[in-house]
């Protein structure tokens, strides 16, 4: 993993096509909200399928909590669109099928020489893309649990929402 991808540093403002083929900037997707930036191997990996089921469970909370999810893989957009629909995800997927970012970020899983996928990694980000916490998901138990994500988003929101304490007037 790139040395810069640590807590307190700004995550690069990725520019990639989404699952519908539209070019998107990560900063635009964040739109002043906390973000889960989730790199995954691909639709074919049973661990990813299991992890996505967790995230789909969490999206019912995120949809009312002004919090964004963004998932990134080397799958082409049309494959991501089908996978997204199949699992019932309602957030944006970004496709790095052209491998524009995987090496720059130092996030290629080098032990899989067949797919050369993204190393499963989760970043919780502040609204300005500052990294709050990094989760190494190479082993499944290294991934962020939904409870850890709740705790991260609480901390990020508390720090970034100027009206976290209810206004008195």
């Amino acid at each position, binding site marked *: 993993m790139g040395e810069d991808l640590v807590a307190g540093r700004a995550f690069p403002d990725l520019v990639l096509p989404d699952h519908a083929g539209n070019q998107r900037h990560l900063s*635009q997707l964040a739109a*002043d*909200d906390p973000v889960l930036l989730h790199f995954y191997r691909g639709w074919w990996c049973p661990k990813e399928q299991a992890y996505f089921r967790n995230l789909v469970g969490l*999206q019912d909370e*995120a949809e009312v909590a*002004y919090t*964004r999810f963004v998932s990134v893989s080397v799958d082409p957009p049309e494959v991501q669109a089908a996978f997204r629909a199949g699992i019932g995800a*309602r*957030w944006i997927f970004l496709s790095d099928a052209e491998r524009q970012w995987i090496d720059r970020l130092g996030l290629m899983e080098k032990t899989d020489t067949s797919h050369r996928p993204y190393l499963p990694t989760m970043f919780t980000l502040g609204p300005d893309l500052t990294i709050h916490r990094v989760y190494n998901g190479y082993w499944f138990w290294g991934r962020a649990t939904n409870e850890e994500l709740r705790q991260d988003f609480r901390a990020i929101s508390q720090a970034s929402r100027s009206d976290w304490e209810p206004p008195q007037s």
Partner: protein
Amino acid sequence: MSWLWFDLCPDPATGTVASARVSDANGTPRGVLCAWASDQDRPTPTAAKVDSRAMDPCGEPGSVSLVLAPDGLYLPFDDSAVAHATRMVLAMPPADVCSTLVDGDDRFRGSVTGTHGDEGRLSYDPFGVLFPAVVLRVEAGLLGRMSSPVGPVTQRYGATNPWPWDRFEPA
């Protein structure tokens, strides 16, 4: 938040910032879609707020699925049926334009979903289960392009704004 007044009028209206004639699939004229600046009084009794990104006076022709509540009807924006429709929109392939139509602070009165390409995208409109939907062909001069909503957020950013506008106004 940047929003505009929006309505379907029987004839061209004055003072608009964008407008275009519309017709149905048979080519029958169905009126004029009009947008007005938000800093003026409500231009028609039935005008509602629309996301300004949905409107473009230089916009190319296209098609819209237009959902309009019958006169006098509305749903609270927090109604679970409205929330479910927004979930469905997030799950579907994105359109070139999508905005709910809001009356006052908390009244859902319809939606506009548009495309400059395949009209088939408009064959199912989740908001069409709430109020009647009609697919209309739109001449040039109205329909913009906007990024698809990010999700999974279904809440409005401020109680007066049309979903899916995606950020709070600066304090």
